[in-house]
């Protein structure tokens, strides 16, 4: 049954790809485009629905199991048998992967449905659904794999799907370039990941999860292992996660990845693929819990990324770019969670983020769709009345991500932040709180500039603004519903107790049965308790929201004054220029690389080509001399031959003497 979860999207991809995207249907069968679209619209989301239903069934069966038995393993075949190294095509469904599979399949299904409306006018409709199905297939391989090598297959596969979908409109060279950039930047991370896998095999002589983690968590193993080897493994794996999950310094590809169709941004670059790194860290929790050095690095990188991306998001003007930087920032929160040892909290934020970020992206897609592909929020405003459902659901997403009390983001973000504080990462906690203020600010700014206030939509377009079709707004409503109530699965224990609930944090209880148990690393005797920490998070959210409300709704002249003020202008430019990270990379890496290329081109032209050409030249010139011997006079040949024979005879005679 596990196998069919994975195979269903593959079936969709193969049929959509080979029969329809290749043009076989229209050219060889002679079918009409209308029928093609109907079949693809049914098959594309249909196969995902099959996966989603199957995974839900398995999830409920999983709930019925206890402790170590709480997992399903299905081995299909031994994939690479090579001496002491074996990698099987083996699937594992345990609480960690179950959460991922549910998110991936159901969010994918909603986004597939949304795509029917969003992409209806595109001429490469079948190709789009082919790629989308391929993506889901590889994503499921990634999360269901039971060894690192198979996980790497999924890891690379989703990278491929991401590349194909970012560059979906490949006629536009900037979009094709963005696809390439994503692919190449990810290679750097994959390099670390594959080294990590090799090191795991050298240390543990296996790549299978159960064997590796059992050995790693066995008492005395870490002490007996070579110094720092666990830290190195953890950091190499983290490099992989940094690439795929767009953390500093490899986050530059994600904002550019917004060149793809908006549903793709929602699915791959917000809800699922970019969270693969978080999933991997949660999966490898044994390594991180065994290495405080690695944890500190992960949390520091994550905190810096979260803060940096949030500051950039403050000033951007492209609706999708803001959401992209917001995603980078929220991924930073997730890494702060899993990096500090609060794996359940990180995974919970992954879950809620999948809901509200997919919602926000799809809402943005709905706006872009209504405004004829306009993405600049300076040309929006006042469209709430024309897009009532989109505006309302977008507001829900905005409040959820801002940590508005009792919405999903409130519970998950606070869980991470209070964990940071209670585990002794005080500096990181402060950065997290500041980032929470910024998050609330830029998200409400985005909402207000897009939907409220005076309309800045160009005149002729203003009359045509319309709400999206049902296939688009229905997913919005469903996602908004989960963004609203998603938090109830993870109500913190201390809050549950005061409400008279036992085991209120269902999510943590479920996830932690798959985590290896460690003594609690909470530091006792801290200044603040749970409730105080909660208050900080709530206040941070409200400060951000109020600031944005004042600046962009009540006194809209202030932002312009800030831009003009001498004190804040450099900061504004710094944020608008995205910390000039792209420019720094261009200067430090790309430009020296181009110069090196020029140098090697010179070497190739003059040294290598000189050698090769020189040989040919010598042969040609010497042949001019030797050609004279080929006179064509038969008698001369015979004479020379006779003389040669005579010469040989004379020589032999003299030698014999």
């Amino acid at each position, binding site marked *: 049954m596990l196998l069919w979860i994975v195979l269903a999207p593959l079936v969709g991809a193969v049929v959509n790809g080979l029969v329809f995207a290749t043009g076989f249907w229209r050219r060889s069968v002679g079918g009409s485009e209308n029928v093609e679209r109907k079949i693809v619209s049914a098959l594309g989301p249909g196969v995902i629905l099959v996966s989603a239903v199957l995974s839900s069934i398995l999830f409920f069966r999983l709930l019925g199991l206890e402790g170590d038995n709480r997992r399903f393993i299905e081995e299909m075949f031994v994939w690479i048998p090579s001496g002491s190294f074996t990698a099987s095509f083996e699937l594992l469904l345990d609480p960690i992967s179950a959460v991922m599979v549910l998110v991936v399949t159901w969010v994918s299904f909603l986004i597939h449905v949304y795509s029917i409306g969003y992409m209806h006018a595109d001429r490469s409709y079948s190709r789009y659904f082919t790629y989308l199905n391929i993506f889901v297939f590889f994503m499921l391989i990634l999360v269901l794999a039971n060894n690192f090598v198979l996980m790497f297959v999924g890891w690379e596969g989703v990278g491929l799907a991401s590349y194909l979908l970012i560059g979906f409109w490949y006629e536009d060279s900037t979009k094709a370039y963005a696809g390439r950039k994503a692919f190449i930047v990810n290679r750097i991370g994959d390099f670390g990941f594959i080294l990590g896998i090799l090191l795991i095999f050298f240390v543990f002589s296996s790549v299978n999860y159960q064997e590796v983690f059992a050995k790693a968590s066995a008492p005395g193993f870490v002490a007996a292992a070579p110094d720092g080897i666990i830290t190195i493994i953890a950091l190499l794996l983290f490099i992989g996660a940094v690439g795929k999950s767009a953390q500093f310094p490899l986050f530059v590809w994600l904002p550019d990845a917004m060149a793809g169709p908006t549903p793709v941004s929602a699915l791959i670059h917000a809800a699922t693929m970019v969270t693969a790194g978080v999933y991997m860290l949660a999966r490898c929790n044994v390594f991180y819990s065994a290495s405080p050095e690695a944890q500190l690095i992960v949390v520091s990188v994550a905190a810096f990324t979260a803060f940096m991306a949030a500051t950039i998001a403050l000033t951007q003007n492209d609706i999708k770019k803001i959401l992209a930087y917001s995603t980078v920032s929220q991924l930073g929160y997730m890494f702060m969670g899993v990096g500090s040892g609060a794996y359940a909290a990180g995974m919970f934020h992954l879950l809620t983020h999948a809901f509200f970020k997919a919602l926000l992206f799809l809402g943005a897609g709905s706006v872009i769709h209504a405004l004829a592909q306009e993405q600049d929020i300076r040309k929006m405003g006042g469209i709430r009345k024309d897009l009532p459902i989109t505006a309302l659901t977008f507001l829900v997403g905005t409040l959820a991500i801002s940590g508005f009390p009792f919405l999903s983001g409130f519970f998950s973000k606070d869980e991470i932040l209070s964990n940071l504080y209670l585990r002794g990462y005080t500096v990181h906690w402060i950065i997290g709180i500041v980032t929470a203020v910024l998050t609330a600010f830029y998200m409400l700014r985005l909402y207000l500039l897009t939907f409220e206030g005076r309309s800045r939509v160009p005149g002729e377009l203003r009359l045509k603004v319309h709400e999206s079709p049902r296939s688009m707004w229905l997913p919005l409503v469903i996602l908004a519903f989960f963004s609203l109530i998603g938090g109830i699965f993870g109500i913190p224990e201390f809050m549950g107790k005061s409400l008279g609930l036992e085991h209120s944090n269902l999510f943590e209880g479920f996830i932690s049965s798959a985590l290896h148990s460690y003594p609690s690393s909470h530091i006792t005797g801290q200044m603040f308790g749970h409730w105080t920490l909660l208050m900080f998070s709530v206040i941070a959210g409200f400060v951000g929201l109020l600031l944005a409300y004042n600046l962009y709704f009540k006194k809209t002249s202030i932002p312009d004054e800030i831009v003009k003020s001498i004190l804040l202008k450099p900061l504004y430019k710094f944020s608008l220029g995205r910390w000039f990270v792209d420019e720094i990379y261009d200067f430090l890496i790309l430009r020296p690389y181009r110069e090196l290329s020029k140098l090697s081109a010179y070497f190739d032209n003059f040294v290598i080509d000189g050698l090769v050409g020189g040989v040919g030249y010598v042969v040609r010139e010497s042949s001019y001399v030797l*050609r*004279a*011997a*080929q*006179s*064509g*006079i*038969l*008698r001369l040949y*015979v*004479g020379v031959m*006779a003389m040669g024979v005579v010469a040989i005879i004379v020589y032999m005679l003299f030698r014999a003497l």
Partner: protein
Amino acid sequence: MNVDVTHYLVLGAVLFVIGGYGVIARKNIIIVLLSLELMLNAVNLTFVTFSRMHGDMIGHVFMIMALTVAAAEVAVGLALIVAIYAHRETVDIDVLKMLKG
């Protein structure tokens, strides 16, 4: 006069040299071919002579082989000459030097 091996060998050498002179000196391609045959048969004569001298039949076998091949070669050679004449209207080998490099 007693005819012994030396006489045969001298006759073979004389014939070979005459043939060799003909190949080098004559211009007519038919004469050249004829001289070539002469050289071939001079060698055949030498083969048979040594064969008799050693009382070994292998020399005879070689001679018969060479004779057969020579017959075939003459047939092909003359046919080529006819073809060349048909195209070029000449059998002068000094004129026929199309293979000049």
